[in-house]
């Protein structure tokens, strides 16, 4: 992966716009102390994110996919600073986000990364007008000279997301789901941000509205040179918009690769299984192998490689030892079977 120079600062690190290393986040979900004492229950820790390494280059779209409980939403919130990490580091444009800095420095970095949320109905304050919602980051970071400048900036942002500046006087409930996501995007861009963390931004939208929003996001990325960390469970969407994809399972990154590589030559058994669940809308009649089992509870994950109960290729080593990521074909895979070259890597095609 990266070579670490003796002083800890890798020369390659500064080239990566966003660099996440060894990121962990554990949640203590134990019963209250009294209950634990009386019923002799052990502490319970959910290892929501258990050691993630990701690099995102400027202008790129990195997508994190996985099913529920895999920790991808937690990663999004860790990157943006909503939770402090239990371990590991996040570097943004060369700056370590967890280091102690002055309030002003912190603000300057926070300004450049913003978040877009999944639920268009809960992500806008229902009591605020749209103008104030979009103006809030501008005001908070002091980016407008005066009232006229503020109005112009807000109007410009609304226009960028294909709404009208006059929509500023309305309240969120007067807009449809798709329009509210546009307002969210306008708010995220209002601070002149460069890096957007998008947590399932289209999952709650109808398919035709999703197309509008995805097209908009791709246009904005081109025009404003934005970098996206895109969280999703929808593989078709991810295939469409991503530069690189990372697959998560129970808090760990099992595979990451450039998009084409991941979809055409998936390596990790879980990735293969996930790709098999994508519906065959091109009616190409492609073969899908049966899928087994369910995602285990994150409170009591299986030992060793957490996927081993569902994996058709698991052996004794998989049950005991956690696989480390191994570089391969422009990406990395955490799988003993791949490392030992026990399973072949096949090429897939999705059209007839």
């Amino acid at each position: 992966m990266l070579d670490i120079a003796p002083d800890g600062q890798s020369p390659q690190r500064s080239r990566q716009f966003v660099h996440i290393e060894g990121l962990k986040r554990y949640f203590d979900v134990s019963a209250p102390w009294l209950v634990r004492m009386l019923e002799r229950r052990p502490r319970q820790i959910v290892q929501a994110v258990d050691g993630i390494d990701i690099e995102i280059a400027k202008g790129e779209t990195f997508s994190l996919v996985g099913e529920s409980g895999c920790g991808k939403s937690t990663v999004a919130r860790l990157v943006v600073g909503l939770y402090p990490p239990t371990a590991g580091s996040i570097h943004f444009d060369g700056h370590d986000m967890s280091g102690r800095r002055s309030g002003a420095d912190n603000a300057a970095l926070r300004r450049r990364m913003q978040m877009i949320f999944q639920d268009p109905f809960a992500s806008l304050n229902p009591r605020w007008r749209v103008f104030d919602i979009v103006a809030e980051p501008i005001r908070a970071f002091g980016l407008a000279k005066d009232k006229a400048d503020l109005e112009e900036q807000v109007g410009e942002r609304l226009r960028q997301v294909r709404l009208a500046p006059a929509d500023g006087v309305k309240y969120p409930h007067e807009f449809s789901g798709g329009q509210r996501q546009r307002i969210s995007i306008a708010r995220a861009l209002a601070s002149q941000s460069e890096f957007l963390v998008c947590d399932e931004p289209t999952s709650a939208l109808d398919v035709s509205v999703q197309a509008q929003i995805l097209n908009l996001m791709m246009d904005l990325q081109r025009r404003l040179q934005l970098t996206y960390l895109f969280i999703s469970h929808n593989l078709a969407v991810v295939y469409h918009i991503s530069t690189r994809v990372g697959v998560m399972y129970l808090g760990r990154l099992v595979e990451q690769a450039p998009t084409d590589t991941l979809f055409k030559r998936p390596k990790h058994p879980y990735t293969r299984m996930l790709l098999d669940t994508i519906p065959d809308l091109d009616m190409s009649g492609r073969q899908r192998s049966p899928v087994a089992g369910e995602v285990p509870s994150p409170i009591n994950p299986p030992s060793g490689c957490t996927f081993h109960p569902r994996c058709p290729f698991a052996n004794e080593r998989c049950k005991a030892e956690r696989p480390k990521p191994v570089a391969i074909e422009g990406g990395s895979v955490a799988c003993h079977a791949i490392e030992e070259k026990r399973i072949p890597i096949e090429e897939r095609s999705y059209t007839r």
Partner: protein
Amino acid sequence: MSAWLHRLTDSDIWWSFKSSWLTVVAAVATLFIILVSFLSPILAPHTPFDPATISLSDGLKPPVLVSADGEWTFPLGTDDQGRDVLSSIMYGTRLSLIVGLASVVVAMIMGIALGLISGYVGGTTDAVIMRIADVQLTFPAILVALLIDGIVRGLISVKQHDEIAVFVIVGAIGLSFWVQYARTVRGSVLVEKNKEYVQAARVIGLSPMLIMVRHVLPNVTGPVLVIATLNLGLAIISEATLSFLGVGLPSTQPSLGTLIRIGNELLQSGEWWITVFPGITLAALVLAVNLLGDWLRDALNPKLR
């Protein structure tokens, strides 16, 4: 202004209001009582608590429609000091309403502030505030109010106490009611705290105080309004109870409760009108306010729509 009015009359709430005749009657009654009592300096035929205008010779006159001894100048009769019952009721209602409203406002401010902090900050602060609230809830509100009132009386002289009686009562009742506001607001805050718009504000880097006040507070005030309206009736009754027991407002500034107390002593000798009329007024006022509160609670409940 007219746009706002238009939106109001066009809204679901107005429609639900109009469609329930009981609520309309209750609203009209409340409005009537409020108007008449607050305009009492103008409307009342007498000023019963100005010693210069009363004379003992007018004492104990019965209501005019009930007996031949009555006079139209004292339509509902007089008490033993010669004070006109009707005017007493008007001034008394005004005082009851002022005390009731003020104590609700005090309880609301205190409850909202503590509930907001408790819910948003969480942790130990939350635990401490909620335990205090729990302890206070084990006492009936009246007892708490009595306690506070008693302490103040013990600390200052009777004359001083009479002057600030209104404030003491308002404070006592307000302090006894803050808990339900705090708990409701805390519940709403816990729900709103996890919503994405709050997270978005945190991502922008706003301070928790700003987020609490600007983002969360406007969204948790809905249920508070309902509690406040229902509480108003309770506050008025509480004040009346305290005054009836003799530890509320003094006879120099009587509220409905005080009037009922004064009349109560004379009930045995047959002068019933001095107690009954203020009693009816009190009951009517509280009933009307409670009906309004009931309607408001149902109208604002999204599940029932």
